[in-house]
């Protein structure tokens, strides 16, 4: 092994160490070998946790919210990147507005979502004042609702900014010149989008989409503010078990954390599979 490859390996280990320690601790804690309430090794607790319907309901609900909000954000990012691409004027302003949500903390975005979308929120009052609702209370439930619409919209708005930034970069660095090539080869605008812009865009933003999905699936703050208590989203359930007065339930939290991490790993694996099978997704 050369000196530079040894250095590379050491650097990779240094970066991975906190994750490996965390995963190792979670595995040990979930089988009762360490942590408060540890009662000796065994998979009984893990099996028991994974057998609880509330866990799977929470996981399914979290995946629904993550998938819906990420899909909305990605669609918006692609649309904005494809539509507003000139260097100046309205396009530039549109790009600026698109990335404005980036520095806003998720918690602040969630509170804003609550104030805006709640049944006594600004939107309800506005619609009522316009005569579109008899009274603000007639507003459909968008927060604490089982479908998680308010949470989905809030998270989509936040992730849209991140994905739009990546999409702008893809279009600016590679897309424009390749589109020119396609045009002079005879491709009309629709064909340019279908055969060049779209394939480049989705390939370019897919890693960011996966990152957004994984983040949203395990995000806590916005979920805590806007999600219903039934089903209880996986991140909320995890924290509930971790902070339970019964210390023996803390191991459950680590088992749930491992479940969440498995979901993340599966998403990354799906991304890697898609990367190696690009051709199947060509229009």
């Amino acid at each position, binding site marked *: 092994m050369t000196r530079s490859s040894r250095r590379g390996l050491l650097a990779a280990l240094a970066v991975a160490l906190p994750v490996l320690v965390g995963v190792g601790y979670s595995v040990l804690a979930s089988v009762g070998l360490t942590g408060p309430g540890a009662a000796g090794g065994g998979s009984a607790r893990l099996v028991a946790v994974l057998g609880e319907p509330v866990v799977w309901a929470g996981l399914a609900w979290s995946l629904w919210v993550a998938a819906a909000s990420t899909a909305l954000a990605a669609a918006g990012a692609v649309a904005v990147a494809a539509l507003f691409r000139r260097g100046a004027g309205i396009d530039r302003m549109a790009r600026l507005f698109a990335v404005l949500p980036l520095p806003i903390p998720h918690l602040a975005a969630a509170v804003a979502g609550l104030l805006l979308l709640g049944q006594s929120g600004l939107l309800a009052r506005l619609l009522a004042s316009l005569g579109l609702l008899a009274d603000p209370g007639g507003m459909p439930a968008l927060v604490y609702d089982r479908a998680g619409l308010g949470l989905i919209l809030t998270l989509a708005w936040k992730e849209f900014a991140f994905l739009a930034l990546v999409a702008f970069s893809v279009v600016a660095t590679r897309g424009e010149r*390749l589109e020119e090539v396609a045009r*002079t080869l005879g491709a009309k605008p629709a064909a340019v989008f279908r055969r060049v812009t779209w394939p480049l865009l989705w*390939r370019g933003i897919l890693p960011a989409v996966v990152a957004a999905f994984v983040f949203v699936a395990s995000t806590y703050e916005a979920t805590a503010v806007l999600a219903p208590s039934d089903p209880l989203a996986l991140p909320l359930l995890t924290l509930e078990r971790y902070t339970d007065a019964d210390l023996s339930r803390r191991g459950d939290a680590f088992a749930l954390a491992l479940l969440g991490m498995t979901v993340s790993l599966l998403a990354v694996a799906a991304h890697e599979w898609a990367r190696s099978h690009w051709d199947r997704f060509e229009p």
Partner: protein
Amino acid sequence: MTAPALEVRGLSVPFGDAPGLRDIGFTLDPGERLVLLGASGAGKTTLLRAIAGLAPLAAGRLTVGGQDVTARPAESRDAVYLHQTPLLFPHLSIFENVAFPLRIRGYQDSEIRASVAELLESVRLDGLAGRRPHTLSGGQKHRAALARAMAARPAVLLLDEPLAALDPSLRDEVRATLLSLQAHYRPALVIVTHDLEDAAVLGDRIGILLGGTLAQLDQPDRLFQRPASLAVARFLGLPNLVAGSVAAGQFQSALGLIPVEAESPSGPATAAFGTDALRPEPCGSLQGIVRSVQYGPRGATLRVDVAGIELEVVTGAGAIPHPGDELSLGLERDRVTILPGIGDV
């Protein structure tokens, strides 16, 4: 009578806040090759992009194959533009890259396969059809981009410095591929370069863009032997520019008298000539002293002081003189161009 492949009339193209290109005009026959030369920032690329429909025109008219395309978008001009670096679609295989123009024109799969196979064979990439662009070498990418351009069967192919980023061996390879494809498919070529040698080899005619205008458009031999202006002579790097004046039908300078055409205006003028107009000879009309000798692959380049004027001479035969030697030179006066204005060496 066949319509010209490309006709450019009174073309003006804005260039940011600068005046840009003004009143550019030329006609190109099918299968003809025009090379555009000019200093960096002269607007060569802008002109190509304007012809391709990728840059807005301020004025002028463009026809391709006799059709007025001035108001048409890039996709409807029948003019393919190739960037300096070969921009292959990274998400497509080499086969699909070359098939791209055919697919968007709705050809059948069997026709596409046959056509792409022929094109890939002609650029010697037939074994690499399934590869991705990033796995190809620089020369292979250029050849693939040329094959893709030819697949569109354009009337005009616009090439922006196609050989600039290549090392010498690849330049020869890509140049040969370009000429071979052009001979087969017969598009008119407009090639931008800053390399005089490429221009001389590739161009049926060469255009010089200076100060936003087409300063001269001529066949290579005429261009190098008869530059139209002092600016063109300077741009072409003619090594010998001798200041003098025209009076009574003669150019007078330290080199002696040189007859000029009767209608030449009197006044300050410059004699411009290449190294091929001067040669050492025992009883030459010019006597000088060798100031420096530089050896090169084609012989020695001498700097010779003739009556206080330093002239450049290339000699490849016989004994090469040394600095300080006296040298007698013969001047082929019919290879000397007298240009209005002063441009001393």
